[in-house]
């Protein structure tokens, strides 16, 4: 047998060697403590390719380093686009089909080895044509192709042609809707009027990238951003940490000098006219455990913290204000409404809850949907499931978006009314004429999660109170999307986060031609609604269009296509040394406006 002393020596040597080998080359040094640095928590992130910026985290990271033609004004409300890399807002032809942009001369990509001599070159109109084609390239699997597909002249044919190519895609294949008519002039031609184009051009998908970087870095392009944004990437360790530093060639943008009434008093205009960005460095940590985030926030290492359900009561007093302990530390609380609506949708093609050619049955099914909606105590729902962090919804158009009204929800919780409606639907006490219980099936995503189980229990109990047997199936997200997409639903939980500040983004969810497998997952088809929708598509923002939005919202409410649940509210805590923060519905590029005081 081997003597134990030799074994001990062997193990000791192994320990030292293994530790040295494993730890030696992997550390990076933290520069978060250096001066004017903004430290925050990041999250899952798809890399620095604008075509992949589908989620909040990816959009924020991409916005630090890339820019587009337009962006939202930071302080103004309601939200409106302003020029960023253009010399002004575009010229729009009288038929609304041609948008002409004049690109700002002198805007440069950052210096990078992908350029000859490593010197960043000037951005020209052709760069936008190239970047927009990338969004449509089916091989890149961008979830943002909808911003152009079906709208831009020739886009769908171009996608078909490019999609058929196996191998490297040739972006020189012309796309009639995107034309660089000279060095600084970009023309976008539409197949039909699309006033929302100005909004979608603020989205990260439409940011400009240089073809040299895409070709030079190939598959590694998403790790090597080469943009025009206020920052440039200094280091990125996936699943751990990102660091940006000020882009020395950033094109002279300054802090806004106008805003809403009250912004000046709030100190939000103190930095008016100062060159952006206001911080030298941004460091983002990828922290997933909220307990750790909380310790980092209390220790002053990060400027903000969200509030998880479990910590809500520790930080927020019963009157929903900040707890005295945090007030003493100078910490500020912001409640930011997310422009989104959570709801329960009914499949209007379903034989039990949907529309019917028989007007009597049709009316009974409508009463059934109304009974369902009236049986859900949404106030209790947001209290029990979300600690009152969300607000009960009263319209499918969320607050702050034109078309939202303060009218009370037509199907607010009323158990007696729900019982009466279910009886009028032909199911008194939830039973049909043969005494069989009405059984409905609902799907929601989040299989296996505690939250999904709690929600499922809540809905089942709510419907049991009117005698309806609701079976809630908790599905994986992919399976949930498939069922919703393919119309294999009866009742389903749904949520929609608005892509741009226009209720049309919601109204499209009820437009007949968008029925499954399109985004109208309820398969709602109402010719009167469709006619109005087609009208508003070509209308610019106006009181007349807002009135139409309200009418269309009323139609869907009467038909009870959705049982409304809530609007999400994001609770954020901020350190006293963090300045210039103003809640924003589309906050991705706002890092350049933030300021950090010495602390």
């Amino acid at each position, binding site marked *: 047998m081997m003597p134990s002393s030799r074994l001990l020596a062997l193990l000791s040597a192994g320990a030292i060697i293994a530790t040295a080998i494993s730890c030696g080359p992997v550390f990076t040094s933290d520069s978060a403590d250096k001066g004017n640095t903004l430290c925050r928590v990041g999250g899952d992130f798809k890399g620095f390719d604008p075509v992949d910026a589908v989620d909040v985290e990816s959009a924020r990271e991409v916005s630090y380093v890339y820019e587009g033609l337009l962006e939202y004004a930071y302080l103004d409300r309601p939200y409106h686009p302003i020029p960023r890399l253009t010399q002004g807002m575009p010229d729009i032809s009288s038929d609304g089909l041609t948008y002409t942009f004049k690109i700002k001369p002198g805007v440069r990509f950052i210096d990078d080895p992908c350029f000859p001599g490593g010197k960043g070159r000037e951005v020209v109109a052709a760069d936008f044509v190239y970047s927009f084609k990338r969004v449509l390239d089916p091989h890149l699997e961008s979830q943002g192709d909808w911003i152009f*597909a079906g709208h831009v002249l020739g886009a769908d044919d171009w996608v078909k042609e490019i999609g058929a190519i196996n191998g490297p895609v040739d972006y020189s294949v012309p796309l009639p809707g995107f034309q660089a008519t000279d060095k600084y002039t970009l023309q976008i031609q539409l197949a039909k009027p699309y006033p929302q184009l100005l909004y979608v051009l603020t989205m990260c998908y439409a940011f400009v990238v240089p073809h040299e970087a895409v070709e030079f870095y190939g598959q590694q392009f998403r790790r090597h951003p080469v943009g025009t944004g206020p920052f440039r990437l200094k280091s990125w*360790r*996936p699943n751990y940490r990102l660091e940006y530093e000020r882009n020395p060639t950033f094109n002279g943008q300054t802090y806004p000098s106008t805003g809403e009434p009250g912004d000046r008093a709030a100190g939000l205009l103190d930095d008016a006219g100062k060159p952006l960005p206001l911080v030298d460095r941004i460091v983002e940590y990828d922290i997933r455990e909220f307990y750790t985030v909380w310790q980092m926030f209390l220790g002053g290492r990060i400027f903000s913290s969200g509030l998880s359900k479990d910590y809500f009561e520790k930080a927020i007093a019963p009157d929903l204000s900040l707890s005295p302990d945090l007030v003493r530390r100078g910490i500020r609380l912001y409640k930011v409404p997310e422009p989104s609506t959570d709801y329960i949708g009914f499949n209007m093609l379903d034989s039990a809850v949907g529309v019917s050619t028989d007007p009597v049955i049709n009316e009974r099914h409508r009463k059934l949907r109304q009974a369902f909606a009236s049986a859900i105590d949404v106030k209790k729902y947001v209290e029990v499931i979300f600690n009152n962090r969300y607000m009960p919804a009263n319209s499918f158009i969320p607050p702050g978006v034109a078309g939202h009204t303060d009218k009370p929800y037509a199907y607010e919780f009323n158990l007696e009314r729900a019982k009466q409606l279910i009886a009028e639907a032909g199911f008194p006490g939830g039973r049909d004429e043969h005494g069989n219980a009405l059984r409905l099936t609902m799907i929601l995503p989040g299989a296996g999660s505690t939250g999904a189980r709690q929600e499922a229990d809540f809905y089942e109990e709510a419907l049991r109170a009117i005698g309806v047997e609701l079976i809630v199936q908790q599905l994986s997200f992919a399976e949930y999307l498939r069922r919703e997409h393919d119309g294999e639903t009866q009742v389903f939980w749904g949520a929609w986060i608005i892509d741009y500040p226009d209720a049309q983004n919601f109204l499209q969810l009820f437009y007949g031609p968008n029925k499954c497998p399109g985004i109208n997952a309820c398969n709602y088809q109402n010719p009167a609604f469709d006619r109005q929708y087609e009208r508003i598509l070509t209308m610019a923002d106006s009181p007349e269009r807002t009135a139409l939005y309200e009418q269309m919202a009323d139609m869907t409410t009467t038909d009870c296509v959705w049982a409304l649940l809530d609007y999400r509210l994001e609770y954020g805590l901020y350190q006293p040394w963090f300045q210039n923060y103003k809640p924003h519905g589309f906050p991705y590029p706002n890092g350049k406006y933030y300021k950090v005081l010495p602390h």
Partner: protein
Amino acid sequence: MSAYVIRRLLSVVPITIGVMLITFFVFRVVGGNPAYRIAGKNATPARIAQISHERGYDKPLFLNFRQFPTQLLDAQFPQLCSNLLRLDFGRSFVTKQRVSTMLREGVGPSLCVTTPLFFIELFLGVGLALLAAYYRNTWIDRSLVLLSVMGMSISSLVYIMLAQYWLASVWRLFPVWGFESPRYLILPVLVGVIAGVGGELRFYRTVMLDEMYQDYVRTARAKGVSSRGILFHHVLRNALIPILTNVIIAIPFLYTGALLLENFFGIPGLGRLTVMALFNFDDDVVFATTFIGSIMFVLFNALTDIAYTWADPRIRLK
């Protein structure tokens, strides 16, 4: 012995296929077609069909009976096995990076935590077990047993939270989170040792005490060998087999990482990667980590058996 080794190595195949089959069932059969997740909320049917086609999600799940027998294996699971065998782990749909790159970047940080943790736990566990055995049935032995049982009874989450709150946030002895220098490793390793050494101590103590009552110990004692001599020269040497089993079988877990520690302390290792992949249903990453984990586990099991013959020449492998 070579026949035995070959047999054990061949057992990797059915075991790994079995493990992958279960994982595949959970992620592709129960989890549904990932193309819907990849395509997103505004996807057109054409886009979903295209993603399904490009990534092979439109193929039959297990076997392609539609094109029997020529294309029988032209299905998702055989394709996955073939890719894994060629070490083509695919691309994460969340980060869009190659999974092999993600694994390569995660191994170092994982080993940074698990290697010192493993050796400290081993030395401390064996050392304290020897101490407990030497002083068996005295207050020292009882105290060590009591402490180890207490240590084992408390969830490691509690240790993590207490350490982050008191040692890092309040007393500021260590950083709360991060992976910037060896100093950042002290707290996760300390927590890992405290959470794990109790179990090790209990196991090794039992092993030592088993040996203490063997005939050869009585003989040695009758020959006048000192208690210390018996413990270090006879008992420890004869306890090598269970120690070896425990040590070698733990090696694969050094690579798979410490899930909780990495997640709470911000170590960008494979444990954290696996947890995030599970949360996100990032199937390619889960398939890769499961595949590597199962192969390593079977191989190190075989290695343990081989090590027995090295530790005790009386053992023959057939």
